């Protein structure tokens, strides 16, 4: 079995309102070094086998919405 982690995040050009709220809260806790927090999601796939093109197809067809989101694929050791 192979474990593949897909990270999906809002495109940088879009306002991440949840991330903004977290940023403000971190500042409220005096973590002043934080300029920006952005929230994404992790989808961990446990797979029989790994084929990059097929995982990309999963991202394009369902896991991410290319209109608003970027994704990265990591194959875990």
């Amino acid at each position: 079995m192979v474990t593949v982690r897909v990270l999906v995040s809002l495109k940088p050009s879009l306002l991440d309102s949840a991330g903004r709220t977290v940023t403000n809260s971190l500042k409220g806790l005096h973590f002043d070094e934080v300029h920006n927090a952005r929230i994404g999601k992790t989808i961990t796939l446990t797979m029989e086998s790994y084929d990059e093109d097929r995982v990309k197809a999963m991202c394009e067809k369902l896991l991410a919405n290319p209109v608003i989101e970027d994704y990265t694929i990591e194959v875990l050791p």
Partner: protein
Amino acid sequence: MRVAVLQFPGSNCDQDALWSLRDDMGVQAEYVWHEGDSLAGFDAVFVPGGFTYGDYLRCGAIAARSPIMAEVKRFAADGRLVIGVCNGFQTLTESGLLPGALVRNEEQKFVCTTIQLAAVNKTSAWTSQVNKVLNIPIAHGEGRYICDDDTLKSMQDHDQIAFLYVDPHGEPKESANPNGSVANIAGILNAQGNVLGMMPHPERATKQILGEIDGQLILSAFQRVLA
């Protein structure tokens, strides 16, 4: 003529839609379960609001990939009427039937109120009867419509902006925008004008005893096109 009101796990405006169409608009309407793969015998589709599949992954994402939506795409390509309201709008953008996307409201809050709408497009079946500022309820947490500049320009050039959030005088003021949607957009059409997606709920505004009846001006499209 008959309207198919789609039902997914988590739809919650399906009954509102069915009874609005039957009782108030005098239009035949039946539920169609999402696992179906045929719209035979139907002339139009209503994709209702709700929280399909618990809004898992993204609002409308799972519903957009259910079997019935392939048939809805064929239906739309044939030029038949398709409307998606609220979560139904999210489902239509997720399915690629309408451009852009709907994301969390700018202020993070679920908004539940009555807003004012003005029609921009004046010629589609959905908007041709809208001759005034409409009072229509909204109820959503992820209704901020976004698209890139090229898409916005293309929609404006092709008269695909159906409705804007406006003030009582019909002006699309920033203060009238309940969720941070780009250019105050509340509803859009596909290029052919037969597919409408909108966050406000016209099916909740067709009976005087419930407060508003302006939704009739939108849903009367079913009566005229299908008569």
